[in-house]
């Protein structure tokens, strides 16, 4: 029932977009090379699927994404848990993070090539950078925001340092960290296109850039379509993951 209704609404919005698009083409009178029609894009999608390249691009992109994202998450959470508890060290690190964070990962491209070369690495590094800061900042602030009662309790029970970090601080901070993970999935995925512009020879970002190079705007739109759909799926999966952890930890609904 619930899925059926979601599906119905999605269909309505899909039809809405297609008609709006067709109307723009109809009234705007653009050359096809500059604004492909829905049908052309559909054909493009089909051809990508048929010759198997789509599958390959998706596979490569997801691989890069997961390597970059997961390593960023692990490093950022570990660092964040420690930095959140060591106020003075964080005060020194904080200005650095604050200045680095607003810089687009793309701006680092020359240095990324210098240190990490070309191919998979630049995309992975850019996704790493894009995911790292949101997760780090949300972990640090999650640790700082922990209900003081938990800390008092731990003091009172004379719980050891490592137990405190793993069994109390981490789970207590988790809901807020999860929020950071959620935001980071979005931002990191957005930077996939940028990351795959630096010397990559495959992946959805490359597909878009390469099709743009070849003036195949229908394939650009097909690429955009798949990036959007996969981004949506990634977002939903991390939502499910959050729920699953929540269930393990007895948080209901929230």
């Amino acid at each position, binding site marked *: 029932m619930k899925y059926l209704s979601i599906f119905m609404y999605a269909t309505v919005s899909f039809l809405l977009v297609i008609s709006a698009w067709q109307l723009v083409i109809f009234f705007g009178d*653009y*050359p*096809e*090379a*500059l604004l492909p029609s829905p049908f052309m894009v559909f054909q493009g999608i089909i051809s990508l699927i048929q010759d198997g390249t789509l599958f390959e691009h998706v596979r490569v992109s997801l691989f890069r994404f997961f390597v970059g994202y997961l390593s960023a998450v692990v490093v950022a959470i570990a660092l964040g848990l420690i930095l959140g508890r060591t106020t003075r060290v964080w005060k020194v690190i904080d200005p650095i993070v604050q200045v680095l964070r607003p810089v687009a990962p793309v701006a680092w*491209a*020359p240095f990324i*090539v*210098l*240190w990490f*070369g*070309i*191919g998979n690495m630049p995309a992975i590094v850019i996704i790493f950078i894009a995911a790292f800061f949101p997760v780090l900042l949300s972990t640090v602030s999650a640790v700082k925001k922990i209900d003081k009662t938990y800390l008092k309790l731990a003091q009172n029970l004379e719980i050891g340092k490592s137990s405190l970090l793993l069994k109390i601080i981490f789970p207590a901070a988790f809901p807020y960290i999860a929020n950071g993970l959620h935001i980071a999935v979005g931002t990191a995925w957005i930077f996939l296109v940028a990351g795959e*512009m*630096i*010397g990559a*020879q495959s992946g959805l970002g490359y597909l878009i*850039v*390469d099709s*743009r*190079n*070849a*003036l195949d705007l229908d394939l650009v739109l097909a690429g955009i379509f798949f990036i959007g759909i996969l981004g949506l799926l990634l977002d939903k999966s991390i939502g499910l993951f959050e729920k699953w952890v929540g269930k393990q930890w007895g948080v209901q609904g929230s």
Partner: protein
Amino acid sequence: GRPTPGENDVIRIGHLPITHAAPLYFTKEYEEELLNGAEIELVRFSSWIELMDALNAGRIDGASVLFELAMKAKERGIGISAVALGHREGNAIVASHDVDEVADLKGETVAIPHTLSAHNLLLDEMLQREGMAYEDVNVVEMPPPEMPAALSEGRISSYIVAEPFGALGVTLEAGHVLYQSNEFCPDSCLCCALVLRDDFMEEAPELADQFVEAYLEAGVRADQQTEESLAAHSNYLNVTDEALELSLGWITYEDLSIGEEEYEHLRQRLIEMQLSDQPPTYEEFIDQSYFEEER
């Protein structure tokens, strides 16, 4: 698309900051002298893609652009014509110090800026000469500014790209020149072209005439290796004098006319390499009327 020709007499021409676009710089530098009253606005882009987007959408009146890329746009139905070359020669194959001959590149990575470029054709030409296949090397597309660094760190073994990046690689001692383009295809390695939008030429034919004439004259001036000309170059290209002089030594701007034969060669190469199915013919795409008037 609806063109937005520059207000009044402003001609908007797109380019990338490379030595290959020098005639444009000189047109701008001597604007008052050459264009009597008209104005040219040079719009600098950071990559070919963005430049082509603007050209295709009619946001600029013309551009100095990779010839092959312009042909692709024409094939796609964009109303543009090539009126002159950007330059001749000036495409060096730069290789790392441990590559002494083409055979050393087997299995190595070679960078080019774009598949639809003279550099790609040049690479293929070079490999063919040496009896190698295109597939013997690992070709990657990457932004030109990253190439010297990639070469220096051993991420790639060679690159072929527009100037001044070749010269920069050499002056940074990241690599050495393996070959110059003229060693493979003398006079027929068409690289960059000046293309104008057809609607611009139709709406302001006199302005277009004036501009192309100025452009050709500017080419002649750009070719002179005088103090003055060097100074003009470095007004537009922010590179060391050393790299600039090296780079200019490899290029000529004197004869910017597009010959039918050399164009046909380029067309065939594109088809051979399966980069294009039906590239436009000479008649469709090349407008040499300016040269005819002159002669």
